[in-house]
């Protein structure tokens, strides 16, 4: 029987900070994959695209659809953040299904970087700061007026929304990815030794979950930015708030 454990990380003291080294390494792997991918697809762009260029254009159009679909024409300005979040989370989630666990660490093991609450909280706080900042840049001091709408006594609720948004964003991503890994461990624990391939259907489902979670994160970030930058005068229709 496998020992079911999670939340153990290879903690290293680095410049007076305690760092989860396994999370750092896998996050760097995800970033290196993305950098190599983007360098490879932007090298010698052609008018008549090749197979790789068509793929990258499809990815780009998908991200544009998320951003512009939530924000309208405003979306073209924020496409960098939404796209980076989507691609980084997608690659990180998919990294969890690569058998990196075969390489043994002193403590803990290689898994998705989004398996660590620190990463997801950092991403969610980034979104928080970004939508507050872009709302203030767009509407100036009038941005804070929306706390007192529709009635002044709604202010505590509206303020609490700003706190629960990063909480639910980070916990949702972390919980989904961690639950996926724990489920695979549990399945491995309850089947006999020769059925070691039993978790494969669940791993295929995890591929789907990885995509859905990255998509949800990007769409929610886009809709938060859309709600913040909507302004009060113009009739911008934001589908979700």
């Amino acid at each position, binding site marked *: 029987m496998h020992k079911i454990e999670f939340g153990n990380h290879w903690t290293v003291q680095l410049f007076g900070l305690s760092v989860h080294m396994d999370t750092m390494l896998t996050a760097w792997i995800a970033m290196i994959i993305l950098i190599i991918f983007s360098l490879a697809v932007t090298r010698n762009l052609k008018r008549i695209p090749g197979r790789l260029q068509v793929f990258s254009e499809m990815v780009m159009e998908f991200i544009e659809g998320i951003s512009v679909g939530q924000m309208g024409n405003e979306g073209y300005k924020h496409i960098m953040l939404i796209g980076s979040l989507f691609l980084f989370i997608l690659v990180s989630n998919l990294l969890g299904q690569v058998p990196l666990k075969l390489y043994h660490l002193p403590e803990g093991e290689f898994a998705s970087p989004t398996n660590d609450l620190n990463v997801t909280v950092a991403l969610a706080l980034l979104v928080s700061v970004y939508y507050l900042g872009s709302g203030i840049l767009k509407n100036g001091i009038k941005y804070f007026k929306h706390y007192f709408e529709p009635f002044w006594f709604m202010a505590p609720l509206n303020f609490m929304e700003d706190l629960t948004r990063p909480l639910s964003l980070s916990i949702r991503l972390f919980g989904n990815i961690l639950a996926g890994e724990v489920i695979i461990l549990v399945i491995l624990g309850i089947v006999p030794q020769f059925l070691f391939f039993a978790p494969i259907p669940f791993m295929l489902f995890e591929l789907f979950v990885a995509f859905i979670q990255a998509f*949800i994160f990007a769409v929610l970030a886009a809709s938060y930015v859309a709600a913040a930058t909507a302004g009060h005068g113009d009739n911008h229709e934001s589908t979700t708030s």
Partner: protein
Amino acid sequence: MDPKSAAILAMGIAVGLAAIGPGIGMGTAVAAAIDATVRQPEAGGEVRTLMFIGLAFMEALAIYALLIALILLVKFVFV
């Protein structure tokens, strides 16, 4: 009852109870999305996006219970 067995019981009850509400909600939401898509197939893409956003909010409720269960597990069972 010692704290460890209480924590194990609480974990099971938490996850089981928290799955009820989101399950009912997701059923309603998906049924409505299918209904909308069948009535108006050209709006299918938009309906699907909205459905996934809504499902994410509902799923978050169950995930909170999972988180509480994991906290209990780490605090009381693994020590």
